[in-house]
């Protein structure tokens, strides 16, 4: 029993890490209807930039600020040179463009900072602490706290601010958004910059866990089933989906894995998400497509 709890808690906490990446996706999807495959590359880019700056002996806070600025600038550049020229294109075209973008960012990140593996120490211990019978790493707790804060902040932003409303309007109908006087480029630039910030947070936490290196960019693949389960456009969905996927994935690997030769983690999330979608085609919290005959 206590082992089960361990597995469950471990799963939930690794799910938090997925959520961090998924959040970035949701931001972009909500505002431009784009499934931003480059989010993983942005995570890599952010982490690599930060860690290289600290290795060049910049203080933590300064590195953080500089990286933040760079990510915001990156968001602006993407808006200017990729999204703007592709206004009104089909969502699959945009998706492909972000794939192309991920090449550019990954290439640039490594060109700038090299291909070596960097260790990243945020000063948060990653050793188990005992809570009753359950062992939880302090690092995980901090990660969960950060994720919760971001989700709360973003939800409030979208629900209650007029900028949030503008974001949703732009996602819904671009032509109408232009017609009512919304500046698409502003909205998108803000959204991408925000996504860059989220990527930085995810990059720092993931990087501290895995070391900062190329395969950080593949964490997107972990975020996809999370998105599906939670709904592409739901911030709450990103976190709930992450927790669910984390828990399911780990328990499946531990309890089912041994009977089928292991390695179920690669696909179980997708299969679960798929089964789930058949019941709720827009995910847990996703907006349903509103069609009227």
């Amino acid at each position, binding site marked *: 029993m206590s082992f089960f709890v361990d597995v469950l808690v471990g799963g939930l906490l690794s799910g938090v890490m997925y959520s961090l990446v998924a959040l970035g996706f949701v931001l972009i999807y909500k505002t431009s209807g784009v*499934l931003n495959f480059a989010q993983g590359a942005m995570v890599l880019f952010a982490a690599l930039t930060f860690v290289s700056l600290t290795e060049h002996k910049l203080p933590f806070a300064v590195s953080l600020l500089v990286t933040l600025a760079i990510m915001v600038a990156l968001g602006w550049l993407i808006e200017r*040179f*990729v999204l703007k*020229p*592709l206004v009104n*294109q*089909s*969502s*699959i*075209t945009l*998706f*492909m*463009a972000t*794939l*192309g*973008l*991920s*090449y*550019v*960012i*990954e*290439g*640039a990140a*490594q*060109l700038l900072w090299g*291909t070596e593996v960097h260790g990243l120490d945020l000063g948060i211990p990653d050793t188990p602490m005992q809570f009753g019978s359950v062992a939880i790493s302090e690092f995980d707790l901090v990660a969960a706290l950060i994720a919760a804060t971001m989700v709360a902040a973003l939800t409030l932003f979208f629900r209650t601010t007029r900028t949030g409303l503008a974001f949703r309007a732009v996602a819904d109908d671009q032509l109408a958004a232009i017609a009512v006087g919304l500046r698409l480029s502003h909205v998108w630039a803000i959204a991408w910059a925000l996504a860059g910030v989220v990527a930085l947070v995810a990059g720092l936490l993931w990087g501290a866990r895995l070391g900062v290196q190329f395969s950080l960019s593949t964490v997107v*693949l972990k975020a*996809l*089933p999370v998105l*599906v389960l939670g709904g*592409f456009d739901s911030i709450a969905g990103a976190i709930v989906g992450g927790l669910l996927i984390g828990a399911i994935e780990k328990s499946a690997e531990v309890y089912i894995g041994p009977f*089928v*030769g*292991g*390695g*179920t983690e*690669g*696909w179980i999330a*997708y*299969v679960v*998400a*798929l089964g789930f*979608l*058949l019941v709720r*085609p*827009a*995910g847990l919290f996703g907006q349903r*497509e509103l*069609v009227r*005959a």
Partner: protein
Amino acid sequence: MRFWLVAALLAVALLVVPRVGNTYLFDAILTPFLALSLAGVGLNLLTGYAGQISVGSAAFMAIGAFAAYNFNLRVPHLPLLASFALAGLTAAAVGIVFGLPSLRLKGFYLLVSTLAAQYFVQWALTNFHWFANDDPSGVITAPQLAVAGIDFSSSAGRYVLSLAVVATLTFVALRLVHSQTGRNWMAVRDKDLAAAVIGVPIFRSKLLAFAISSFYCGVAGVLWAFAYLRTVESDGFTLDLSFRILFIIIIGGLASVRGAFFGAAFIVVLPLLLSRIGASFFGTTDSGIAELVEMILIGVLIIAFLIAEPAGLVSLWDRGRRRLARLLSFVPAPQS
């Protein structure tokens, strides 16, 4: 006129090229180009025509490759082409299974089904050693390629075999998209509600698209494994390959059979060109840098192409031809 043009092209490809090409041309360019084109045609049927987005093409290629390998291995005296066809059918059957969710899922949500296919298939093929004839590392090797007693094992032979298979299946695809089947697909893609009202069997059309598309990808996988790489492991059929095939049809042109060939040429040849150019620029000491620069360039080119011509290379080509036709006024303008 158009027909003759294609026929002439095919004749050159089949009769002249094998005589003049070298093994590099066959093994590193033409054969993978053909295999990827075929996969592109298959995906285009599904995504371009029927509107069902898929990122699982590589998985169906893997199924094709492993199925052909096993049919060859386990069924004595099975003709090679029969094993190709059976491999295609196996992929089609699996394709139908993963197409079932398309009944309820749309757009990016459908990605999940095909992603599930991508990961599950790869896992199953490596995890159950039977598929690779109990080879512990999960690697399969191509059998001897002989059709009706003629050996196609040489570089040129493998190219010719691929060309024949691809040409035949492309012809079939062209017929298909211009028939009621193809129209049904497009109707489902453009407005499924209206399609349902006029009596298009929505679900059946989607499943048929999944089946046929997977068949094509399956056969493409056989070519990839047998004619191109000759030894493969299921890890070779990665999501990355699926994405590349998706690139092929987007860059080539959605809903265009020809587009798949344009796209494949772009995707196969461009990196080679860039790496050659890169190598002569950077030399040996900085091959890592050359590679990264190349990576960035490919990304930039993809984005640039999407911006310049969202309708794909095909429409670029057609426009160019029309312009040329106007200039020369004896080349027939392509029908739109």
